[in-house]
C-alpha cells in the first residue's frame, strides 16, 4: 500500500502549487455542474473491467461504466458534500462552543453542554438512520445528518479553548474597554482559535467525503449520484480479484485533494497566527 512518492527532492511546496491543485479539482467539479463532462457517469459504455484505453482513459468498471467519468462526477460530489458540511459544521460548532466557553458554568453553557453530550451519546448510526427516515426525499437530509452529528466535537474543542482564553489579559482588557460579548468573541477569541478551526475544517471535510458512502447505504445521501466513496466501496469488493482501477483512481484523487487542502490550511494558519507570522520558527536552533 505504498503511494508513489514525488521523484524530485522535496522542497517546501509553495502554496501556489497546492492552490493550483485545489483549483484543478474545482474546475473539474465546475465542468460537471455546467454539464461539460462527467454527465455520463451512469452510462454503460463498454465491456466490463477494461484496462485503460484511448476510449476509456482509466478503463471501465464491473458494469462497463467509464471510470474517468465517474471520477470527475465524484469530484463535484466531494465539493458539494465536503465544503458544505465542513463550513457549516465549523461555523455552528464555533458559535455554540464559543458562547458556551465564554459563559462557562452558566446557564447557557449548561444547556449547550447538555445538548452536545446528548447528541454525542446517541449512537451515530441510529441518529443518522433516523434522520434518513424522518427527512426522506429531502435532498439536504444527508448534509443535515452529518452536520448535526459532526458539530459537537468542534464545539467541545472551541469551548475548552475559549474557557482558557477568556481570563487572558487581552480579553479582560477588551471587557474593561466596554466591548460587548459578541465583538469580543468575534474579534479577539476566534482569531486565536483560527488554527484549530482551520485544521478542524479540513478534517471534517475529509470525514464528510468518506462518511457519504456510509450514509448512502443507510438510505440517505445522494441517491442518484456517484462519489469517490462509492467508487472505493465498489473497489473493496473486487480488489482481491485483482481489479485495482476503481480503487487507485478514487483513492489517488482523494489523496491529492486531501494533501493540497491540508497544505493550504497549514499555510493559512501560519499566515493568520501573529506569532508565527514571520516564519519565526526557522530562526530557532
Amino acid at each position, binding site marked *: *500500500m505504498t*503511494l508513489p512518492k514525488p521523484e524530485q527532492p*522535496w522542497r*517546501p511546496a509553495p502554496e501556489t502549487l497546492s492552490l493550483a491543485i485545489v483549483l484543478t479539482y474545482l474546475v473539474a467539479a465546475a465542468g460537471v455542474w455546467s454539464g461539460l463532462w462527467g454527465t455520463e457517469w451512469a452510462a454503460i459504455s463498454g465491456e466490463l473491467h477494461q484496462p485503460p484505453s484511448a476510449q476509456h482513459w482509466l478503463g471501465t468498471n464491473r458494469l462497463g461504466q467509464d471510470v474517468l467519468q465517474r471520477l470527475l462526477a465524484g469530484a463535484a460530489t466531494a465539493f458539494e458534500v465536503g465544503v458544505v458540511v465542513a463550513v457549516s459544521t465549523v461555523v455552528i460548532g464555533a458559535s455554540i462552543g464559543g458562547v458556551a466557553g465564554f459563559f462557562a458554568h452558566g446557564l447557557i453553557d449548561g444547556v449547550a*453542554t*447538555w445538548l452536545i*453530550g*446528548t447528541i*454525542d*451519546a*446517541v*449512537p*451515530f*448510526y*441510529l*441518529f443518522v*438512520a*433516523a434522520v434518513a427516515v*424522518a427527512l426522506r426525499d429531502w435532498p439536504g437530509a444527508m448534509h443535515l445528518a452529518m452536520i448535526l452529528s459532526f458539530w459537537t*466535537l468542534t464545539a*467541545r*474543542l472551541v469551548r*475548552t*479553548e475559549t*474557557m*482558557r482564553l477568556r*481570563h*487572558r489579559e487581552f480579553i479582560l482588557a477588551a471587557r474593561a474597554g466596554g466591548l460587548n460579548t459578541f465583538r469580543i468573541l468575534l474579534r479577539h477569541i476566534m482569531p486565536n482559535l483560527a*488554527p*484549530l478551526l482551520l*485544521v*478542524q475544517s479540513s*478534517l471534517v471535510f*475529509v*470525514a464528510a467525503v*468518506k462518511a457519504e458512502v456510509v450514509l448512502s447505504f443507510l438510505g440517505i445521501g445522494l441517491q442518484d449520484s456517484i462519489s469517490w*466513496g462509492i467508487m*472505493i*466501496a465498489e473497489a*473493496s469488493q473486487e*480488489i*482481491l480479484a485483482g481489479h485495482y482501477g476503481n*480503487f487507485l483512481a478514487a*483513492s489517488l484523487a*482523494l*489523496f491529492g*485533494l*486531501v*494533501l493540497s487542502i*491540508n497544505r493550504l490550511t*497549514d499555510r493559512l*494558519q501560519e499566515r493568520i*497566527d501573529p*506569532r*508565527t507570522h514571520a516564519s*519565526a*520558527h*526557522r530562526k*530557532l*536552533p
Partner: protein
Amino acid sequence: MKAGERSSRFLARRLFSAVPLLLGVTLISFTLTVHFGPDPAWEQLGRNPTPEQIQQVRHTMGQDRPFPLRYAGYLVNLARLDLGHSYASGEPVLDILLRTVPVSLLLVAPGFLLGIVLALVLALAAAWRPHGHLDRFCDLASATGMSLSLVIIVIALQAVFGVWLDWFPVRGWRLDGPVDYLEHAAVPTMALIAANMGYNLRFFRAVFRDVLADPPVRTARAYGFRARRIATGYVLRAAAPPILTRVMVAIPLIVISGSLIIESHFGIPGVGLVTWNAVMSGDQPVLMAVVSFSSILFVLALTATDLLTGLLDPRSRSA
C-alpha cells in the same frame, strides 16, 4: 485539603449533571427508534404473513402501546436495572453486554492507545522542526491515512499478514491466554492505528505547532533549554486540553459503539456488531441499553477530561 474538597464537590456536581443528560439521551433515542426506526415486527415475521399476524406480533412486542407509556416503562425498568431481552434472539440484554463489551474493549484498546502515543510522538517531533524531513513525512502520511478507506486497509492487512506471510489468523477471536490474544488482536490493531493515524497526526501536529509558538516556549528554546524538559514541562501540558477533549470523547464511542467494520471483517463478537444489528432491526431493548450505558460513560469521560485539563494545563493555571 481545600483543593481535594473542591474537586470532590465538583465531581459530585458533574455526576449529578448526568441525570438530565441521561434523560435527554434516552428520550431522543427512544423517540428516534419508535418514530423513525425500523419496525421490529417485520423482522419477526415468516415468509407469508397476514395483516392479522402482523398486528399480533406488534401486540405481543408491545408496539401498539402509546409512546409515553412505553417510555415510562423503559425508565422504570432502567431504574431497576432490568434491561429486558433482545427481540431478535431472546437473550437477556445484560448478558449480551457482559459478553460483548469486554471483547470490544480488549480489541480496540491497544490500537487506540498505541495509535495515540505514536501520533503524539510523531506530531511533536514534526512540529518541533516545521518543514523538516519528519514534518514532510507526516504531511504525506496523514494525507495518505486520511484518504485510505478502513475497509481497504483491512482487506490489505488480511491478505498480507494472514494469507501471504501467514503470521496471524485472518479473522476470529480467542482468549485462551496472552499469546492467543496477541495473535488475534495484532492485525485489527494495525488496522486501527493505520486508520486513525492520519486524522490524529494532523490534529495533534496543529495543536503542537500552536503551543510551540507560545512565548514561553520560544524563550526557553532560545535560551537553549533541553528539548525534553520543554516538551514535558510545558508543551505537552499546554497542548493537553484539545488533545484530551478529542481523545476522551472517543473513549465511550469505542467502548460502546466498538468498531463495526473491524468487528465484522475480523469476525470479532464485540458490541459494535450488536449495536449495528440492533439499529438496523429496531431491536429496542438492546439499543436502549447501549444508549443508556454510553451516556453514563460519556459523563464520566467528560468529568475526567475537565479534571485532567485543570491539573495539567500550565496556561490556565497561570491565569
